[in-house]
């Protein structure tokens, strides 16, 4: 047995988009244990609910994360709508689904780029982010924002996408699919990529269940669970099945995300074809009195929004359980026994979003 030593990893590290600190206990080049510490970017957004009216808090909720901002706003709105028993118009539900799936595509493309960057494949990183720009352009054309959209409101959405614009979006996405497939095939087939991912950081199905993994991390370990199956927004009307892989290694997690990009294209096409005409918002009266847990599938996994209202315009409590927080125990598990050189890529395979985690 070699001598044990501790190497600090983060909060500033080239591979980390956001700050998290890990104390890596090493024996020679093998990680024996990883001890995490967070708290570098806590902003107190949950506390802010005491000062902002419940209608205003939508804009705070979507600022929890810069990547899945739309889904944070959506989770909060769904929780309030359930408490107040607001019937959201069908068209608004379909629009929410389309923006949510576009967010999933851009988040997964961002992750693929970061992963390529982490194992040193710079040109692949550049090309995946170039493709992601086209999705951001669609966001800008339909919502006016590239990162923060401000389109989700309690009772529906604030902007509509007319038929001509929707046809344009479908056309743009159809044109992108072939190019995205070609670059995704590089992740799937390239021997140097496989060398860094296959059989690295295996999370067994039993461990995934025991440690409460969520999202692609869980589905790559063979667990077929996707919160979209609950049928929120317009998912009840769409045909899809959770993307599942069996191996539980970093390669399987990459495959899940690549297949989810393709699935999102299909879901957007389905939603555009089935989108009904009609209103995009339901007028709201009164204030929420009661509590609700809303569960959504974000690109990183299941997010839980707990909201408790007291009948006034200021809520008692908002609590967010983010997917990255749920995946940290699984990360610590896969870090045990790995090589020091694989630590960056393993941290990235949970798709960490520390801003969400700390809020």
């Amino acid at each position, binding site marked *: 047995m070699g001598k044990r030593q501790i190497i600090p990893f983060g909060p500033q590290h080239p591979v980390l988009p956001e700050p998290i600190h890990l104390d890596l206990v090493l024996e020679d080049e093998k990680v024996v244990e990883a001890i995490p510490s967070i708290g570098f970017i806590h902003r107190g957004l949950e506390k802010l609910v005491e000062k902002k009216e419940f209608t205003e808090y939508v*804009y705070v909720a979507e600022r929890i994360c810069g990547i899945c901002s739309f889904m944070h706003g959506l989770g909060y709105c769904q929780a309030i709508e359930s408490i107040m028993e607001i019937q959201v118009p069908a068209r608004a539900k379909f629009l929410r689904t389309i923006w949510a799936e576009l967010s999933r595509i851009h988040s997964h493309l961002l992750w693929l780029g970061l992963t390529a960057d982490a194992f040193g494949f710079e*040109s692949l990183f550049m090309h995946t982010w170039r493709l992601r720009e086209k999705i951001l352009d669609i966001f800008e*054309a339909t*919502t*006016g924002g590239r990162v923060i959209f*401000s389109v989700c409101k309690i009772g529906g959405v604030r902007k509509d996408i007319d038929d001509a614009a929707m046809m344009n979006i479908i056309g743009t996405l159809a044109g992108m699919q072939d190019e995205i497939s070609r670059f995704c*095939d*590089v992740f799937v087939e390239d*021997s140097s*990529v496989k060398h860094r991912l296959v059989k690295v950081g295996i999370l067994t199905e039993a461990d995934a269940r025991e440690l409460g993994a969520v999202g692609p991390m869980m589905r790559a370990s063979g667990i077929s669970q996707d919160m979209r199956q609950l049928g929120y927004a317009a998912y009840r009307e769409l045909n899809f099945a959770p993307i599942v892989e069996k191996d539980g290694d970093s390669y399987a997690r990459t495959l899940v995300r690549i297949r989810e990009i393709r699935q999102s294209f299909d879901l957007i096409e389905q939603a555009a074809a089935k989108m009904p005409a009609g209103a995009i918002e339901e007028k709201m009266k009164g204030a929420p009195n009661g509590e609700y847990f809303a569960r959504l599938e974000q690109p990183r996994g299941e997010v839980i929004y707990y909201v408790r209202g007291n009948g006034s315009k200021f809520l008692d409590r908002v609590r967010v359980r983010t997917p990255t927080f749920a995946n940290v125990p699984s990360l610590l598990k896969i870090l045990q026994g790995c090589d020091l050189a694989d630590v960056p890529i393993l941290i990235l395979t949970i798709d960490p979003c520390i801003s969400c985690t700390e809020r």
Partner: protein
Amino acid sequence: MALFTIAGEVMKSLFRKPATLMYPTVPRKWQAATRGHIGIDINACIFCGVCSKKCHTHAIVVDRPGKNWQIERLQCIQCSCCVEVCPKKCLTMEQAYTAPSTGSVKDSFHA
């Protein structure tokens, strides 16, 4: 075959225009819906103060007796709520972003 995919893309990139803009030499094209900054036609404004009351971030200050309309640019989140509630439709969402700044940027408009 992945090697050929990347090699092919590298060859294409050699003869293709850059995917990036030479910012700020080449200005970017704004989308019609881009939320850049709030503009006001001060001559049409009646200083009712509805925009100020509806502003989630308290960025707008309306002085009715002094006929002055003021916005703190860095406090504004471009949610466009003020534009929606303006009774005279004198507020507009302009496409261009405001210039970068290190301090407070207050724009005042006087009728």
